[in-house]
């Protein structure tokens, strides 16, 4: 009989290196996608939550979790939970720094309901200028918006407040 707690610890260690396929600098723990790891009757149950309802990375993340655990010789089940709804407030400070270093402006303020009009103007992750403009609220992935810096003239992605 395998000790449940040591099995859980081995599973958590195996999951540590799994990154988001779209944002390879962040692990699924950094992002708050990995919600829970528990052991039930010798089987590890991993709970993940999607960032957006239709996030196409979820299937790949599930596959990567199953692969990583299988490699470690651990029998596992992955389940998806929608509640509580994922929010950018769960991004760790470390994750915010990694995002900025990668060239993606991190979500600046706590997520709140958006007004019907108005736009966000995150600081440029390349040159740090606050003089930026929004090109589109929808970017290259569901979780990012598209901006342009008026100082260095470079376009950049920002992680949307959610």
């Amino acid at each position, binding site marked *: 009989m395998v000790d449940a707690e040591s099995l859980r610890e081995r599973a958590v260690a195996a999951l540590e290196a799994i990154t988001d396929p779209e944002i390879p600098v962040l692990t699924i723990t950094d992002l708050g996608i990995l919600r829970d790891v528990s052991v039930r009757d010798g089987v590890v149950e991993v709970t993940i939550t*999607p960032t*957006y*309802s239709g996030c196409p990375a979820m299937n790949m993340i599930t596959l990567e979790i199953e692969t990583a655990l299988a490699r470690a010789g651990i029998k596992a089940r992955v389940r998806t939970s*929608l*509640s509580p*709804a994922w929010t950018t407030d769960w991004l760790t400070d470390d994750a915010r720094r990694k995002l900025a270093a990668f060239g993606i402006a991190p979500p600046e303020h706590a997520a709140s309901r958006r007004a019907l009009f108005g736009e966000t103007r995150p600081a440029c992750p390349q040159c740090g200028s606050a003089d930026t403009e929004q090109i589109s609220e*929808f970017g290259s992935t569901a979780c990012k918006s598209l901006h342009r810096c008026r100082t260095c003239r470079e376009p950049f992605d920002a992680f949307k407040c959610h």
Partner: protein
Amino acid sequence: MAATTSIAVEETPLVLQLLSRADDALILGHRLSEWTGHAPMLEEELALANIALDLIGQARALYGYAGTFTGHTEDELAYLRDVPAWRNCLIVELPNGDFAFSIVRLLLVSAFVDPFWRASAASTDSTIAAIAAKAEKETSYHLRHAAEWLIRLGDGTAESHRRAQTALDDLWPYTGELFTDLASDAGMVPDPISLRNTWNATIDSVLARATLVRPSDGWMQSGGRIGRHTEHLGHLLAEMQFLQRAYPGATW
């Protein structure tokens, strides 16, 4: 055993509620995805595809939950129902038309769906509450996007104004159906009528900025919720369901 090519779904009030919301999301998502490769600019193509993705994701969650009562998978519900079994509003199945038509439709629908999910986040049904809490964050972006565009189209050139007003006039008779009461259990989802004032306020505020004239409420189209659809849905399903019809039970 031969794979099933058509299913009949037993509709309890809850299943009808879930299918109606899921079908609205999937069909509008499918229409928006048709813009891929045709949008007026690259950024807009990304935006419409992103919105379509959110809607299809929401539909998947709703079909998944409906499946726990009907025994059908989300794929079966999407690919194996014929036209009369679809419960979406007529407004979402209409062809895309020009860009103004697609944007006006997105605004008219999102201005309803956004407060609908926000209120449903307090549902007595914990699964509906979870799906709604997720969906309303996404629909608030959809609503903003449509509103910002309509202001630019309405308050833009004479041509964009004319097209936006024409789209609004053509789509208006389809808005009444959004408020159809599906007679759900109390506390499950809000009564659509209770969202009428919120919808009116959103639409009026956007139309004022867009310098567009709100059409008068006349006779309203309906029938989608009871499976009486326009001819357009059949064409859409013929494309969307092609693979499962031609190769029943195919998986990959």
